[in-house]
């Protein structure tokens, strides 16, 4: 009898966790958390993220007080104009990202879609298509089409061959970028300056100020916010997106046109990014340049994330990120900090909010 017991010994006797003398952490999944508590979690994470950012800037040589006065300086009329110009493309990429994220399509191809938006818009200018009066409208429509088509390529690959959209959209950014370079160093190069940029747009091809320091690009962004808000909250396709995100198999069985709705939402997401490209080339740059889309993937994801994919909140967050950008530019000029520092602050905020998401979904308990 003893023999059998001896042989029943395992190779290594396991030590039960409870006998180690310490407690341990466990995670419980939360069922439901009231909205105000969620807001408290997100808000305190945001403050923590900003505090870390301030600390890092202090180490880099910018005392917190100076930082505060620089932030206050943003609110002068001239800086505010810059903020509003900057806010328009940020809000549009935020919309692009949040619409796609709503149905679980991880669109990281915002830059590529912006580039094609810019290229399509510039093509209207370069080939001189349509009468001057409707030129801007045509350019905007072309930009939306360009961004939409570029992302639909990935939608096709995903639906037909199950290609992962995260990788596909991200890598196609480089394809778009080199195609842009191909144009700017080749056929579309400005012959007067020989710089790698297109010839400047004509005056009626540019988004100009409409008074009070507000650029017409911002109107496009606001129109986009209202349209997306209506689509998500009031229209039928918005209702469908919630089911597609929550349970696509079930959605299909109960009669939601999953495929059609998915394709449309993602195409509109690409179109938003395309419009962001148009706003950038037609307001800030006034021509197609090499770098008009740089860094927007990250900003778009950040804005979508902070706004929890709600189009109306996207507008607010987009504005705040624009403030961060303009402050960052000032710091860059006057304190010689690199622009990567601004991107790092963005990253810290994303991580802080991401961790708050975890706390909203789980409860951490200490068990003795």
């Amino acid at each position, binding site marked *: *009898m003893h023999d*059998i*017991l001896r*042989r*029943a*010994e*395992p*190779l*290594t*006797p*396991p030590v*039960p966790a*409870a006998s180690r003398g310490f407690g341990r952490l466990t995670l419980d999944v939360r*069922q*439901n958390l009231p909205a105000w508590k969620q807001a408290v979690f997100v808000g305190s994470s945001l403050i923590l993220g900003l505090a870390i950012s301030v600390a890092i800037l202090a180490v880099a040589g910018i005392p917190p007080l100076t930082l505060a006065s620089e932030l206050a300086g943003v609110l002068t009329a001239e800086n505010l104009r810059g903020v509003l110009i900057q806010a328009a493309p940020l809000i549009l990429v935020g919309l692009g990202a949040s619409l796609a994220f709503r149905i679980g399509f991880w669109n990281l191809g915002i830059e590529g879609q912006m580039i094609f938006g810019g290229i399509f818009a510039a093509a209207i200018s370069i080939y001189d298509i349509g009468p001057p009066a409707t030129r801007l409208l045509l350019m905007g429509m072309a930009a939306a089409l360009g961004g939409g088509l570029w992302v639909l390529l990935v939608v096709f690959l995903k639906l037909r061959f199950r290609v992962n959209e995260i990788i596909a959209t991200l890598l196609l950014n480089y394809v778009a970028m080199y195609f842009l370079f191909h144009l700017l160093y080749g056929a579309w190069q400005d012959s007067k300056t020989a710089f790698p940029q297109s010839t400047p747009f004509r005056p009626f091809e540019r988004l100009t100020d409409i008074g009070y320091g507000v650029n017409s690009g911002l109107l496009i962004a606001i129109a986009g916010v209202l349209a997306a808000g209506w689509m998500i909250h*009031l*229209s*039928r*396709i*918005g*209702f*469908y997106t*919630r*089911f597609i995100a*929550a*349970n696509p*198999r*079930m*959605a*299909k*069985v*109960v*009669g*939601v*046109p999953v495929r059609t709705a998915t394709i449309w939402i993602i195409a509109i997401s690409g179109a938003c990014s395309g419009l962001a490209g148009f706003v950038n080339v037609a307001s800030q740059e006034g021509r197609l340049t090499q770098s008009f889309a740089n860094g927007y993937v990250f900003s778009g994801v950040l804005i979508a994330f902070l706004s929890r994919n709600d189009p109306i909140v996207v507008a607010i967050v987009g504005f705040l990120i624009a403030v961060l950008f303009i402050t960052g530019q000032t710091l860059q000029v006057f304190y010689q900090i690199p622009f990567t520092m601004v991107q790092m602050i963005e990253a810290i905020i994303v991580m802080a909010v991401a961790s708050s998401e975890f706390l909203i979904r789980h409860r951490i308990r200490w068990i003795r």
Partner: protein
Amino acid sequence: MNAALQLAGIRKSFDGALALDGASFESRSGEVHALLGENGAGKSSLMNVAAGLYAPDAGSISINGAPISLSGPALARSHGIGMVHQHFKLVRPFTVAENVLLANPKAHFASGLRDIRDAIKKQVDALKFSIDPDRRIDTMTVAEQQQAEIVKVLVGGARILILDEPTAVLTDAEAIGLLEIVQRLARSGTAVVLVTHKLQDVKRYADVVTIMRGGKTVATLDPRHSTAEELTELTVGQTSALPERTPHQGGPTRLNVGALTYTRADGRTMLNNTSFYVRAGEIYGIAGVSGNGQAELAEALIGAIDPSLGEIWVDGAGDISHAGPSKRREAAIAAIPADRYAYALAGSLPIQDNLAVAQIRSGRYGSIVRLDRAAMRRDAIAAVKDYDVQGVRSVKQKASLLSGGNAQKLVIAREFSREPDVVVAHSPSRGLDARACAAVHQRLIAARERGAAIVLISEDLDEILSLSDRIGVMTRGAIVAEFERPADRQAIGRAMVDHA
């Protein structure tokens, strides 16, 4: 000599539903002990208690006569109890050796892996298996993966080997090979427990058989001295009286399923020329041991999968076997799937949205540009009241907060809101308590009285017997036998196992 593993008076309930009701079981070294029973009889639950995965509410466990308490699977392993689950617990991108090492941790990775590899080779040779310790699991066939599971458990020092439905995933030849190896293993001194619902396996390979029914162990006997009929009767139990009701009137055919064939992505044919018809005002029950294509049949009928061949003809709509969801909705087909949260509800969305979603397209809740949420709310409140859905504080609360029975009532409220002509119900009372179960059955009978054609797919033979006008037995993706009401329970039980 004491029993190697002894379970006595085990009780276990899940969320109020009793899964094990005083079950007792004894397994000896050197024997293959079969545990036979229908689906849901409690076989797997009992063995999960033995493997330390479930903590029993009451009862005792002893190993070699010494009482023990199992606080987890690691402790069960240390007592020499090893279980091979029906769904393998292997890390697919890892090699066999890495998987065995993961289950039997060593102090040092590199030297541990070397030791493990030797131990695996020894076991593989002893059992005459064919697997290579350095092959990745995802390059192996199902039979080879099962060998890896068995080796993993034996390298861990198991003296009591529990195999949960080991032949369910194997071809006939593979199953015979495995059972012969298992028999040899028992002869060399291991106590083997074979959880199964296959009578032939029990008759040919088991030394002892314990039969479970309704969470109880009803008999332990020697399979060689009992007939298949006796075993079947013990497994399915006695026939209970059927409820009275109006006889079926024999209306026109509403649904015809013709030679439906479906092959899964992994190459297994799940539906193999499935054919049957259902008339108006008739409940057609489909009985069978689970895994014989019932799930796929239900999915094909509700449009979750695309059958490769055959037709699903519906009166007035024609062949809908490849039709999209909207055409199926137009054909007035209601779907009550087995897995509510997979196919019927979006748990994270409000009750109101879950009720409205099926009729959004018809325009009942507003146009494309503007949804009519007030109408949704009105209808939802009415449906919750009509179908007696309990636990609803607001129709805006998440559907996942409802209990199983109430979630099912919600599904039925949505699916019956447009008076369906055809109802596909798959295990509609799974996991429900008696009251909710009765309510669901009442709804199905009401639909029948109204003239709907109802397909009732269920692994619960009692449910099939009490509700159905005609019963088809499904085995290996085909209807192999049909019975008229009142059907003989024993005959159905035999049809289910004879063809398996």
